[in-house]
């Protein structure tokens, strides 16, 4: 069973308690009216679709219900880390070093 650590509950719990919520660290444009159609399209739909470590949002939907961020390897499905929403994205090199 895939286990995920909720940074708010500080517990590692089974994946069915959680819901995937898309790529992380995507800022909503401050003034959408100033965007071209292409820029708005990019904001809404275009994602990195990474093969390997991916910054993404998850929600502890059947627990505290909070959104948080995670770094997950899309190849191995392994979570490198999870962290609270609003925190800066962690240094990927250090995370990968810690996996060795």
């Amino acid at each position, binding site marked *: *069973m895939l286990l995920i650590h909720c940074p*708010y509950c500080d517990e590692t719990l089974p994946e069915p*308690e959680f819901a995937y919520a898309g790529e992380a660290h995507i800022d909503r444009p401050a003034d959408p009216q100033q965007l071209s159609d292409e820029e708005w399209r990019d904001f809404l739909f275009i994602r990195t679709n990474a093969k390997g470590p991916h910054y993404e949002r998850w929600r502890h939907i*059947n627990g505290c219900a909070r959104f948080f961020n995670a770094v997950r390897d899309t190849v191995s499905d392994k979570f490198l880390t999870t962290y609270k929403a609003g925190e800066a994205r962690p240094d990927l090199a250090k995370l990968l070093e810690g996996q060795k």
Partner: protein
Amino acid sequence: MADAIEKVSPLHALAEPGRFGDTSGEPGVGLSERLCDSLVQVQAWPDSISALKKAVKSVTGASIKPGNAVATKGDVVLMSTGPGRWLVEDETDDLEVRLRKAIGADIGAVTALTHARTVVSISGERCEWVLASGIALDFSADAFPVGTAKLSHHHEIGLTIHRTGDQAFDLYVVTSMVRSFWGWIARASAEVGYTVS
């Protein structure tokens, strides 16, 4: 003016008292239903958690404990259900009113859940085994000590689970889903034999 609304069991005609499932030996678990007198959720803003804790203590006399430890004092039960959020239960009928007076909009939000949750209690030698057969938590006493509460779910039905004793759990189930949940827990208990009281 009509009399006070009579509480009606959502498990009416489903959770009848008796002995069920395997009857070859002692029953493995006992099941029962409990309707709360008052159950209220309180939610603080990110910067008003300490103020909300003080307000809850002033109303209930019980102090919120850290983490998922459950605070109990008399008939008051305080359970954490997320950051800055707790369930408050007691046996009065005006808990919501008292909490609303103490917790203004500047401190947080108060939501009455008395009719929205039904407590299914399970106890007995095999209760850990029965719960573990359908809920993806570690129910061993080391991982889930007496006096703590955890959130989880059974399929899509959200649960707040309070371990009340070595062999006893209270499960707070969404009332509109509790008939479905009872169907599962009764079938899961049948293998070890169960009583309903």
